[in-house]
């Protein structure tokens, strides 16, 4: 089982839910929020392996280049431009698709690589932990996410996704076999949850919802779940205490009260996914 944890809105508790569920169930944790990966702050695994993620980009051999401009014309990402008497490559815009090399008649294009991020893996207790980190200044997170997920061993995972519903989340969902949506009972939370539900539906995988910072009353997210027949796996109640644990980078399941909550959630999820 590869369970993606997503939310739509940021800061609803994806990392809290995924780290604590991973620890409770003894299942691997994968931090796919490569722009701002925070899960390791809480799990604090000992890092055993670290490697760079490379992206390729074109370099032009000026001896061979006849300045026909076909490469700049074919590039859909505007990563190549003809500027006076040279072809300029903007490496950060390059998607490494190879189209420029295909159209170059003089064989003037070769590829070289640069690091755009890194992958780290390690473990804590019996939980394997993986994360990708995008280098600051790099615009594209997808290649790091793809590489991170492509490298994982065959085992069960919780995949902590980035916020939103764009291509970053999509690349994580493509790999997932089930999804948990974490939300908060607010108008903003619900608005963005609905977008996340639309996205998950496209992938035809089983999914359900966890409400974090729950007010323990009837609220808009609970009625949304009921009306749309979406499974509510459970809730994590709102408390100043939980906020304080979070702020210090502590795991909620190390606290007795919250441990019971995550035990219950874990059982519910195991049951729902027949895990």
């Amino acid at each position, binding site marked *: 089982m590869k369970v993606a944890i997503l939310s*739509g*809105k*940021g*800061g*609803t508790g994806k*990392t809290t839910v995924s780290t604590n569920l991973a620890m409770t169930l003894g299942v691997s944790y994968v931090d796919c929020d490569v*722009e*701002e990966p*925070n899960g390791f*702050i809480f799990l604090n695994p000992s890092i055993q392996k670290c490697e760079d993620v490379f992206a390729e980009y074109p370099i032009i051999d000026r001896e061979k280049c006849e300045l026909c401009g076909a490469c700049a014309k*074919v590039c*859909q*990402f505007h990563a190549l431009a003809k500027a006076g008497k040279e072809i300029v490559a903007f490496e950060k815009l390059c*998607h*490494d*698709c*190879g*189209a420029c090399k*295909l*159209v170059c008649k003089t064989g003037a294009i070769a590829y070289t690589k640069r690091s755009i991020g890194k992958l780290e893996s390690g473990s804590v207790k019996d939980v394997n932990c993986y994360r990708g980190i*995008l280098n*600051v*200044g*790099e*615009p*594209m*997170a997808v290649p790091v996410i793809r590489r991170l997920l492509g490298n994982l061993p065959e085992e069960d995972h919780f995949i902590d996704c*980035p*916020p*939103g*519903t*764009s*291509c*970053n*989340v*999509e690349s994580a969902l*493509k790999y997932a076999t089930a999804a948990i949506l974490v939300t908060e009972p*607010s*108008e*903003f939370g619900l*608005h*963005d949850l609905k*977008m996340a539900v*639309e*996205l998950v539906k*496209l992938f035809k995988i089983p999914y359900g919802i966890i409400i974090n910072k729950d007010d323990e009353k009837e609220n808009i997210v609970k009625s949304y779940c009921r009306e749309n027949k979406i499974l509510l796996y459970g809730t994590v109640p709102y408390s*100043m205490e939980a*906020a*304080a644990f*979070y*702020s*210090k*980078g502590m795991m909620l399941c190390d606290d007795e009260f919250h441990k019971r909550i995550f035990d219950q959630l874990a059982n519910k999820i195991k049951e729902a996914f027949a895990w």
Partner: protein
Amino acid sequence: MVISVLSGKGGTGKTTVVAALSELAKKVIKVDCDVDAPNLYLFYQGRDIEKKDFYGGKKAQINGSLCIECDICEEVCKFGAIKNAMVDPFTCEGCGACTIVCPRKAISLEDEKTADAFLTQTEKGIISRARMGVGSEGSGKLVTYLRRNVKRFEEDNGITMIDGSPGIGCAVIASITDTNFVLIITEPTKSGLGDLKRILELAERFETQVMVCINKYDINQEMSSQIEDFAKEQKLSVVGKIPFDKKVMESVNSLRPITEFRDSPARKAIEEMWICMNRIMTTKDF
């Protein structure tokens, strides 16, 4: 003058602050650049004065009647988006490499509509915003479009405020480019500080002045001091410290800016922050 409100970490209170500052500044043009979780417009009863299809990318399309299933396209696609002469639209990046190698010219690149872009007129000025198709690519491009689309309404000495998205990727880079000020909303948590450092490292590459606001600063006073010490080291001004205030949740759920809550401590702190920001902003010439 363009002020971009960013955070790195999600859920730190960008939208709440943007809505409040817009009220205090009276007339502000707003751009909701958090395109895949847009919430700012929810605060306003507005009328859409413009709706346009936004084409943010392209996808390959195979014409079945021309295709001879030679699979050359499959071999050349670096994204693994073509299998058995079918294009997986989720994986295709619209690069067109397949169109170049197809011996039958059976593949074309088609523009893909990725969002509806709106200009919404409200009593409190115009909002440029979008409804993005789920899973769409090119949110950086869309952010750039939303900002450009509202330019014609900008006046001299006017303020444009950007509600940014979390993260440090293309959408955020597009939200920092060509801004005069960046206000980073952080929170006193280990994650908040970690993410603040990353967004700051990014903002430093641009010619923009950074200000920092600590939201819910009293949730962990020790972390707040750590953030303030860090800001001091980096020679950044902490322009505001907003206390935890239950009224903020009430504000979000009643979809009224926090400035409408008379006795709210968060409102008071944001008012003080706005004075502080103005002091900094008026000393700078453009």
